[in-house]
């Protein structure tokens, strides 16, 4: 298309623009989650993540200090309670650290925007209340009016953007957080690493046999592997769970490692065989002529040369087992709570903390962080693996 004279710049801008639009649509959902994980609860509740950089308008409810403790006798039977709702409400450490600004306020839940800052509200029979934009309040009245619990003050505030690392701290490091991800993180790692390493070795030997050894039935076996690639693992759940129960493994790490190995073997054999078939025949023939045993050929020549394919499969299997939910739920997770994996924690949280986006978003990001790192750093191998045998 570059050769089309005169149409270049117009078409080229259209292409850039369309590509940009596509990329933006694809990245937007994940970006939303990432931004939300750094915001505080109040902010998430009051504005969408796209407005994270703008001040958020929030409706809040505060209470004046307890009159029984804080009221001041002004004489003539009048009493005063005064203070600052933000400092007393715990959202600011002292008057200098107030970042909120009140835009309107009210004294009743029925009319939360009845008054402007500094306006004096007449609550009837001489009782008055006034609130400044900074949150300082004065509540005056007789002894009967200024008693009991503090008066409620409803404010609409404009709060500047407030980003925090607290969510990550809570999710990852807080030991009293029952839904914390740190244990799940280590469990997921424990499930993934053996489940990635063990199939590689088994598959490599089999792939070599299918690629470079002549024997009757080879074509049939290759076809069988291709067929097994397609078998959905749903079919294997009940029989294998029964099998594991019968031979005494029950639910646990050993079971899930074996299961992942079994389910990952077809892909491993397929990928590795396709790659090994492409290795130069002469190298192998020469080695045979030189008297090397098959085992030596395999370990000294084939394995090193097959490294790209091994890496591809390793990444595939790593991502697949890290992101897996169903196999873990069936073969691993029991009621002790010690064996949960991150995907499981996330699903539980979607139910129990579904409204708490700061926790949900942060946990989700913790769970996808490692795969993303693996993905971005080892993309090459992943792509190569995908292409093996797919391009015709």
């Amino acid at each position, binding site marked *: 298309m570059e050769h089309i004279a005169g149409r270049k710049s117009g078409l080229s801008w259209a292409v850039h623009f369309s590509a940009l639009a596509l990329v933006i649509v694809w990245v937007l959902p994940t970006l939303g989650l990432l931004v939300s994980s750094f915001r505080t609860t109040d902010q998430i509740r009051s504005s969408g993540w796209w407005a994270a950089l703008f001040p958020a308008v929030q409706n809040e409810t505060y209470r004046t200090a307890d009159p029984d403790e804080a009221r001041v006798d002004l004489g003539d039977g009048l009493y005063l309670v005064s203070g600052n709702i933000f400092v007393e409400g715990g959202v600011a450490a002292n008057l200098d650290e107030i970042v909120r600004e009140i835009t309107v306020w009210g004294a009743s*839940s029925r009319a939360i925007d009845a008054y402007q800052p500094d306006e004096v509200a007449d609550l009837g029979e001489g009782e008055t209340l006034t609130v400044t934009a900074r949150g300082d309040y004065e509540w005056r009245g007789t002894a009967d009016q200024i008693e009991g619990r503090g008066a409620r003050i409803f404010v609409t505030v404009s709060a500047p953007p407030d980003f925090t690392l607290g969510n990550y701290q809570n999710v990852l490091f807080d030991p009293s957080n029952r839904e914390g991800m740190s244990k799940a993180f280590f469990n997921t790692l424990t499930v993934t690493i053996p489940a990635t390493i063990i199939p590689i070795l088994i598959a490599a030997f089999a792939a070599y046999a299918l690629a470079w050894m002549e024997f009757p039935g080879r074509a049939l076996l290759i076809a069988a592997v291709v067929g097994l690639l397609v078998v959905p693992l749903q079919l294997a759940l009940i029989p294998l769970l029964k099998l594991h129960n019968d031979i005494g493994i029950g639910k646990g790490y050993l079971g899930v490692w074996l299961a992942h190995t079994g389910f990952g073997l077809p892909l491993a054999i397929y990928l590795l065989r396709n790659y090994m078939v492409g290795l130069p025949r002469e190298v192998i023939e020469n080695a045979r002529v030189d008297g090397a045993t098959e085992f030596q050929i395999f370990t000294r020549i084939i394995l090193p040369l097959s490294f790209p394919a091994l890496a591809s499969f390793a990444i595939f299997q790593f991502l697949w087992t890290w992101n897996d939910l169903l196999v873990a739920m069936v073969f691993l997770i029991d009621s002790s709570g010690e064996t949960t994996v991150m995907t499981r924690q996330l699903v539980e949280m979607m*139910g129990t903390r*579904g409204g708490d986006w700061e926790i949900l978003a942060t946990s989700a990001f913790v769970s996808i962080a490692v795969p993303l790192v693996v993905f971005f750093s080892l993309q090459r191998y992943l792509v190569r693996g995908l292409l093996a045998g797919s391009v015709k």
Partner: protein
Amino acid sequence: MKRSFYASAAALALSSGMAMADAHGGLVFPVGEGDFNWASYEAFAAAHDLTGQTVTISGPWLSPEADRFDALLAYFEAATGADATYTGSDSFEQQIVIDAEAGSAPNIAVFPQPGLAANMAANGLLTPLGADNAAWVSENFAAGPSWVDLGTYADQSGADQFYGFFFNVNVKSLVWYVPENFEDAGYEVPTTMEELIALSDQIVADGGTPWCIGLGSGAATGWPATDWVEDLMLRTQTPDVYDAWVANEIPFNDPRVVEAIETFGQFARNDAYVMGGAGAVATTDFRDSPAGLFQSPPGCYMHRQASFIPAFFPDGTVVGEDADFFYFPAFAEKDLGSPVLGGGTLMAITDPSDATMAFVEFLKTPVAHEIMMAQGGFLTPHSGVNLATYETDTLRGQGEILLNATTFRFDGSDLMPGAIGAGSFWTGMVDYAGGADAAAVADTIQQSWDAIK
């Protein structure tokens, strides 16, 4: 109904100034202080030494009820030297079945539903507690024989055995509200159902939204609606009709049941009545739904839910002052008295051991109940406890409702078999909340009853 086990709600740590003990840490209430029955504790500790043994307990409680139960376990550990752990799951009902079959069941399972426990007993997955324990419950629980009946199921050979020890019960016929919001608006607490409906209409006319209803609960989504329907059944029909309904002696699609479902629909399928509209009912998690009560301006004014819901009120909410409850009223014109719906969680042994039996003994001591009562959100029919240990007057009030109702009935869906009570009844109600026809939904549920007969 379902969340009977959540019955450990109420005032939060902040308001009562209480420090939360972690699972293996210090004891929440120092031994020897307060109104607790420490004598029973000392006697238990002296009689049991289980150093080195473990007890695993699994149940549906998540934070914060789970933290309160952990605080109780700390006492058991201190008394016996054993190691006790509790793990909770939102999909406990599924998990426990899988685990029991796989042989990796915990020592004790906390069942939110007798129906599910009965299923497992019939499959031989539970260990009986024995006739002695049954006799103890009969004598020491208020309305003891009823609690024994609720915990008795047929074993694999068809013989009835006592399996379930009820620990943590709750009252469900409550409506929660914010008294100050009612004051601001000039509303009165209704004492009859007709007044309640009139109040709802009044709130709509004033521009507000009367109700917050949320059915979401992970794999158990739909159970709050079953509580509504059961409460309404008790208010529109006599108790024996309710009993027949629960046992499927009258079919689920009986017109009287459909009428109760449609009465629920009057509340939940009315866009003007519910915060977020009828469409939000099934998608809002039940733990998030009370939040509307405390919003500014109020998102809703009333929330019908069991006594454990204060655990999910915002931090710092003082039950009795910031939020309070009134009895979900009955129809004045139907003259059916003041029926109360309640539920409870029962503990059953899924993997016996000496330490496990000792834990059951611990649960029989008054102090075990009192420690939970004092943390809030826990009610008990144990007649030997000191009522003064109830954390708040509110709880004491609920306890009294429990004991004084003219008609008390256990949550119906908890009594139904698991496939119905933890299956089609839940999903049917979600479908109904989403717009399905009440009669059609009832037909589907009746079909699942027929399928298991």
